């Protein structure tokens, strides 16, 4: 068996080398090992238990142009070889892991910034450009994409599009779906789909949306036309300590319903707040911390800040000023560096981003919190959350559970992890929440897809998948497909 496997691998790798060239086909075990770990607790846990039985790709390829991808997809489709597209590889759901073997397509060598249009404010890029590098390029010309997620340094545009990523300024600038005008995708049969060059047309459905948040299950993105903005003339912040969660959600709702456009609004539950007060403000106090920010033209920013201040002041809160908010803004990625970030610890943890309309969101919060804290009390499970993406119909909760004493037995640990996710997400869905994992659904949350959509609706998604990818070569196993 081993010999047949090696021979097969050799023949595949030889074909890949014909397409991509020797240098861009990598079979080094060191690279494969590094790509086996994303930010998902499970992969980190397994990597430092034993990853011997973790599935791995035959090879990793680094395409440089779409011509190579066209040939590659035809080859893989004919030979039914799984294809796993990869951007930064820093998701937390295993979205870019080759759990069914096959070939990983690392897009980071397709990293060109092709054209900036200073009239319509767009930039055309290849999928592998890192957000940090694109933003640097734009900033030097007086522009910004206004996309600042936690993985700003690590992730690629293609990855963001594929997960419909969300940055901290999403309340004003939206998710990736709001930032993309046009997409080009190589489909599983090697054909190229290019959506229309404008995003708001009535020329049938906007089919580019089929590929946004699709995690590579329909094809590989080869080009993205993104919206850009002028760098803001002014930025302001307000920060308050509000009495409780209910008041804070209501303040947020009022701000969003009033027609104001805060670029940033972050509201923290009591657990997160006590941490913020202690570390940032060096003070003690009870309540929930709210930070609101505006950006853009000076006059617009000033009047919006004033109106937001008025709305917040109507609640019995304590004003904390803007000094620490500026400190937060200027150090907004600091908490993602170890030792502040949990990734350096063996703790069991997961985020469970959930979104709901305003009438349900508080219930969703309490349901998730009580599930974690009551059902898993014996494990010392902790729960903390913040609300950081606000819309004029609802908001999202960004909850994290944390267990510091992970069961030593491997199967018990995995079972506990799955049980917490099951219990917590079911509680959220039952109370009107929708799974909203903008780091990917991947493998971690795929099993909730059918529950979220309902059996009949999910069947349509499966039919679309079968129609576009009859051999199921594209990122198999992800998104519950």
């Amino acid at each position, binding site marked *: 068996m081993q010999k047949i496997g090696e021979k097969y691998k050799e023949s595949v790798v030889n074909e890949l080398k014909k397409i991509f060239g020797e240098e861009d086909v990598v079979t*080094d075990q*060191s690279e494969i*090992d590094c790509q086996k770990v994303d930010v998902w607790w499970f992969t980190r846990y397994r990597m430092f238990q034993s990853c011997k039985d973790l599935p791995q790709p035959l090879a990793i390829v680094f395409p440089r142009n779409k011509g190579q991808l066209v040939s590659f997809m035809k080859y893989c489709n004919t030979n039914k070889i799984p294809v796993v597209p990869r951007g930064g590889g820093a998701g937390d759901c295993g979205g870019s892991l080759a759990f069914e073997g096959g070939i990983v397509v690392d897009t980071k*060598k397709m990293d060109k910034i092709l054209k900036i249009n200073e009239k319509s404010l767009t930039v055309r890029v290849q999928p592998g450009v890192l957000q940090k590098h694109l933003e640097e390029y734009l900033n030097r010309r007086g522009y910004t994409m206004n996309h600042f997620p936690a993985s700003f340094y*690590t992730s690629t545009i293609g990855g963001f599009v594929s997960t419909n990523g969300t940055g901290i300024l999403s309340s004003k600038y939206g998710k990736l779906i709001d930032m993309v005008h046009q997409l080009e995708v190589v489909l599983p049969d090697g054909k190229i789909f290019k959506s229309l060059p404008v995003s708001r047309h009535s020329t049938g459905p906007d089919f580019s949306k089929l590929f946004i948040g699709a995690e590579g299950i329909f094809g590989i993105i080869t080009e993205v036309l993104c919206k850009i903005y002028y760098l803001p003339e002014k930025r302001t912040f307000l920060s308050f300590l509000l009495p409780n969660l209910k008041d804070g959600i209501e303040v947020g709702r009022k701000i969003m319903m009033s027609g104001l456009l805060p670029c940033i609004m972050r509201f923290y539950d009591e657990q997160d707040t006590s941490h913020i007060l202690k570390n940032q403000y060096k003070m003690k106090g009870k309540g929930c911390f709210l930070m609101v920010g505006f950006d853009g033209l000076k006059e617009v920013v000033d009047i919006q800040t004033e109106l937001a201040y008025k709305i917040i002041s109507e609640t019995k809160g304590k004003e904390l000023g803007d000094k620490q908010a500026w400190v937060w803004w200027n150090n907004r990625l600091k908490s993602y560096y170890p*030792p502040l*970030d949990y*990734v*350096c610890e063996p703790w069991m943890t997961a985020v469970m981003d959930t979104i709901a309309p305003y009438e349900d969101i508080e219930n969703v919060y309490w349901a998730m919190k009580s599930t974690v804290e009551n059902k898993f009390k014996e494990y010392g499970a902790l729960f903390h959350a913040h609300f950081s993406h606000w819309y004029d119909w609802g908001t999202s909760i960004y909850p994290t559970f944390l267990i510091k004493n992970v069961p030593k037995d491997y199967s018990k640990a995995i079972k506990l992890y799955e049980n917490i996710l099951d219990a917590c997400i079911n509680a959220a869905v039952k109370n009107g929440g929708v799974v909203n994992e903008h780091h990917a659904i991947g493998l971690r949350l795929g099993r909730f897809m059918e529950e979220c959509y309902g059996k009949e609706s999910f069947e349509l998604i499966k039919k679309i998948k079968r129609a576009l990818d009859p051999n199921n070569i594209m990122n198999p196993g992800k998104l519950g497909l």
Partner: protein
Amino acid sequence: MIFDQNTKEKEILKMCRCCFMCRHACPVFLATKMDADTPRGHALLISRIDEGLSKWTADVVDKIYRCSQCGLCRELCEFHWEEDTLIQSVREILVKLSLQPYKVKDIAYSLIEHGTVYNESKTNPGLKRKTTDQISSDVLYFADDVALCKQPEIIENTKKILNFLMLNWVMLEKEGSTGIELFELGYPDEAKIAAGNLVERIKKIGPKVIITGSPHAYKAFKKLYPQWGIDGLSNIEIYHIVEYLDKKIKDGELKLTQNSNHSMISYHDPCHLGRGMGVYDAPRNLIKTVTGEPPVELIHNKNEAECCGAGSVMYLTNPDISNKVAQNRVASALQEKAEIVVTACPNCKMVLMNAATKMGCNLRIIDIVELISSHLDDNINLKFNKK
């Protein structure tokens, strides 16, 4: 287990092995786009070996020697985890286990036997310079290996400047290794022996001042030797030439002509001079003095400057990767529409020149002494020196 509990290395492994936050800046990653070439990748692979989950393979060892130890990851990390120190420690272990790549063994042998990375004991025969190991002198000019073997024009131009300043200067007949390359490749004991031998020869000259154009030698003399317990140079003033010339200008002892009609000039910060020794202003002051304007800054400059690809002798251990790293730096200069890139390190100049040639671009790469030597103001300085 590779490292004992509670060691610095153990903590770095824990912090870096799952962290992606500096990957975007790693010059080697930007050249290869491989995760195994990143600080996280290195820590992850080493950590698994440290925990007994896997063993050293030639593949992993290869990745450990594909780090230029430029220190940019440490610089940009919010908590400044010393990934470069980790690589250093691991290389020392690999050398002890005799697992280092053959190329590394060859280079180390050459450095130990011949005092040069180039596996040859000869120096450029066409080079006319004042050399001695016998005569005492106030000023010792230390050119270092790459200038001696590959960049004679740096020595010629430095000579011109030193003579212009009417210094009583000499060079060592045969310089030998400062030890820094051996140290970086994982041979700390051999590095200290080489350093000790060099210091003894320098002491015979008895200089009051050492001037070098090599950031590698500068860092070795000024920072590493004291750390290694080699204090023979402690009473000698040690300067990188950019600092020395900047000081002379500030002291009014050197006048340079100014030509505002010049090509677009950018400056590349050598890692050992910039992040290594904190020298950022002096070269910029010199460029401004002779051109009337500060250099056009590359997008990543000063403490955030990317390595040119020459760090840790990568131009010999991994020439292809070194060249790609250098090409990225050249591309960065071209983006600023630079016509000339000035640097202050023979190693940087060599790899950047090779990269520019490979890219077929018209960018000129020069050492700062080449720029300065063409702006020596004979009238003013002669007058000054005659005072």
